[in-house]
């Protein structure tokens, strides 16, 4: 530090020095100035290199067009492949005969490049059983059961998916609940089938909640509400092959919605009308929607009818009674003690 002349003020060295010129960092992209060509374009006649700019633009447009055509060709290619695959699949599995197959795939839902590989995966999965879903969802799943609307379908989960769940789900009673429905307390859990290496690990908690809640990870997702949503999730996780037939999915969905409505129906007339609708789904077949085996629709409908105190399977015809008794036997509960 030196004295700066007679004024007795100290002269400070600069703390830092700016370089003479600032070089743009090479880690950043050099962007085109958006405003410059536009302003030039607006002032037509003034500039001399107008034509050069236009040709440049044409070049870009033609390039984009070329790429677009290429993409469209690629998509068409994929579409034809998917259609072939679909035909192959319907020929192979005659069990899905009740469902009509459409010749073309809805364009919107078709993914771009991955489509081929995922559908391939699905086909192979139909032979190999459930996917390794460890990476998709937390293995440890908690189901909060409501004593108001007990999800009876939980009792037959192991019959729906044989290797999907742990052998012996732990059942807890939350401090907000004092009594558990008798159908559940009588049920001996040891009779359930499954194995310890199963993809999903269930823990059931009786809690004072208005409806069934499913929690897999409180950090990643909010609880899934409703028994029907729970069955849908399990179906999606454990039977990924079914996702192929969209029409079937829609029919299943509307049946499941009816079950959900029945759970919340308070008036006798509405409840009976909804139950009648479910009985129609069963018709004279062994399982709901003419399925060859027990499905989630059976589980949901059975639970909804059990839950509703105003209706009994006897009112819905002999086939419904037979069907309901068969599921109750699988679940190991006595229908008469439920209410």
């Amino acid at each position: 530090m030196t004295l700066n002349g007679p004024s007795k003020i100290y002269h400070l060295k600069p703390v830092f020095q700016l370089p003479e010129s600032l070089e743009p960092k090479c880690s950043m992209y050099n962007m085109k100035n958006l405003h410059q060509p536009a302003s030039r374009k607006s002032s037509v006649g003034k500039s001399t290199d107008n034509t050069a700019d236009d040709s440049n633009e044409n070049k870009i447009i033609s390039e984009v067009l070329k790429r677009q055509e290429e993409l469209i060709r690629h998509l068409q290619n994929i579409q034809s492949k998917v259609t072939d695959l679909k035909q192959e699949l319907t020929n192979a599995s005659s069990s899905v005969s009740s469902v009509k197959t459409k010749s073309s795939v809805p364009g919107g839902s078709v993914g771009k490049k991955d489509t081929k590989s995922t559908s391939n995966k699905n086909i192979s999965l139909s032979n190999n059983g459930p996917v390794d879903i460890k990476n998709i969802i937390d293995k440890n799943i908690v189901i909060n059961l409501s004593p108001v609307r007990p999800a009876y379908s939980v009792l037959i989960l192991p019959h729906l998916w044989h290797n999907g769940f742990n052998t012996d789900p732990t059942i807890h009673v939350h401090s907000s609940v004092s009594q558990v429905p008798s159908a559940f307390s009588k049920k001996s859990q040891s009779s359930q089938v499954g194995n310890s290496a199963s993809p999903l690990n269930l823990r059931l908690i009786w809690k004072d909640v208005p409806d069934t809640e499913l929690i897999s990870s409180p950090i990643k997702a909010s609880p899934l509400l409703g028994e029907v949503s729970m069955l849908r999730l399990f179906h999606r996780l454990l039977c990924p092959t079914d996702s192929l037939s969209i029409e079937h999915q829609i029919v299943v969905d509307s049946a499941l919605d009816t079950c959900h409505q029945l759970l919340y129906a308070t008036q006798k007339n509405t409840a009976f009308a909804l139950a009648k609708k479910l009985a129609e789904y069963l018709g004279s077949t062994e399982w709901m929607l003419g399925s060859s085996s027990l499905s989630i629709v059976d589980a949901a409908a059975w639970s909804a009818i059990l839950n509703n105190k105003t209706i009994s399977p006897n009112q819905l015809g002999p086939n419904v009674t037979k069907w309901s008794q068969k599921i109750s036997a699988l679940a190991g509960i006595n229908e008469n003690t439920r209410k």
Partner: protein
Amino acid sequence: MIKFVSQIPKESIVDIHAYVKATPTKVESCTQKDVELSILEVWVVSTAKAQLPLLIEDASRPITDDAGLSTVNQDTRLDNRVLDLRTPANHAIFKLESGVCQLFRETLAQQGFIEIHTPKIISAASEGGANVFTVSYFKNNAYLAQSPQLYKQMAIAADFDKVYTVGAVFRAEDSNTHRHLTEFVGLDLEMAFKYHYHEVMHTIANTLTQIFKRLKNEFQVEIAAVNVQYPCEEFTFLEPPLILEFFTAVDMLKEAGVDIDYYDDLSTPNEKLLGKIVKAKYSTDFYVLDKYPLAVRPFYTMPDPLNAGYSNSYDMFMRGEEILSGAQRIHDANFLTERAQEHGVELDKIKSYIEAFQYGCPPHAGGGIGMERVVMLFLGLDNIRKTSLFPRDPKRLTP
């Protein structure tokens, strides 16, 4: 008479001769609104000082009351604990605390446990040496017991099968936190098992669940009284209690973005966070973590025979804070010596501990619970000093 009555200081003890009369209009300033006393005579039995260090109304004001009225801070309360304890909330807290001890004894007695009393003046530090108070003992030094563990284990070695003890425990830890005291009441139990240490773990966890259940049913009035002054969410638990393995807990923390290893101990903030995650998923404030890493447990903890690096030990949590730490203990003198050497514990200091296992000892496990912590966390209070009648911490020896 009115002049005389108005001169009696607040908090004095009086005898009153009066008629009980129905009131024409409701009395709004009292809890008893429908009747009043028509006084004939007033006698002062014991006068209080005219100047009170704190007013009971101030001390029992709800913490959520933000009308700008004065409240009493924690230190003033503790300095004048006799007055402070007169508040309805404090009465309820200590009734509930008495309930915890009573239920602990009852529940264990029903299961065939017997109560033992262990010495509090001991010749050697029970857990390796740190954190003990030294007292002069005639011409030598002695220590205050920091855990009754050795004596519980000796009772097991003496074929007592199932024992518990309720008594003072001393920790010379200079930590001034909301959950540490230098003297507290330990509820300790130890039990011999037949096949697996989970027999013991389930016994302890079920005992605690039973206690919570009965507290909830039998102490509703007290819980409500505490809630008036210190509102908090109701304590929730599951029956049977939730038992998670340590690695599952680490997985849950990892999912929440915590950088933690499978062999690390849980830090206090991580324990709190885990408590929140567990509550969100399993809706319980009470849970057990099983299978802690061997490296973070004391030398006498039995290693897990199936998973190297883990041990047969468990911690229990309430509202994300640890209330119990327990494990299967090594019952073989030679193996204990070996483990002590691996941990670098001086063998001279634990000679008597190892000697206890030389004449045969059944496999056993146990744990110790801090009574004050259980009450604090059950009621959702923010400070352990609120649940100790006359708390002792590094800065307080009186009253």
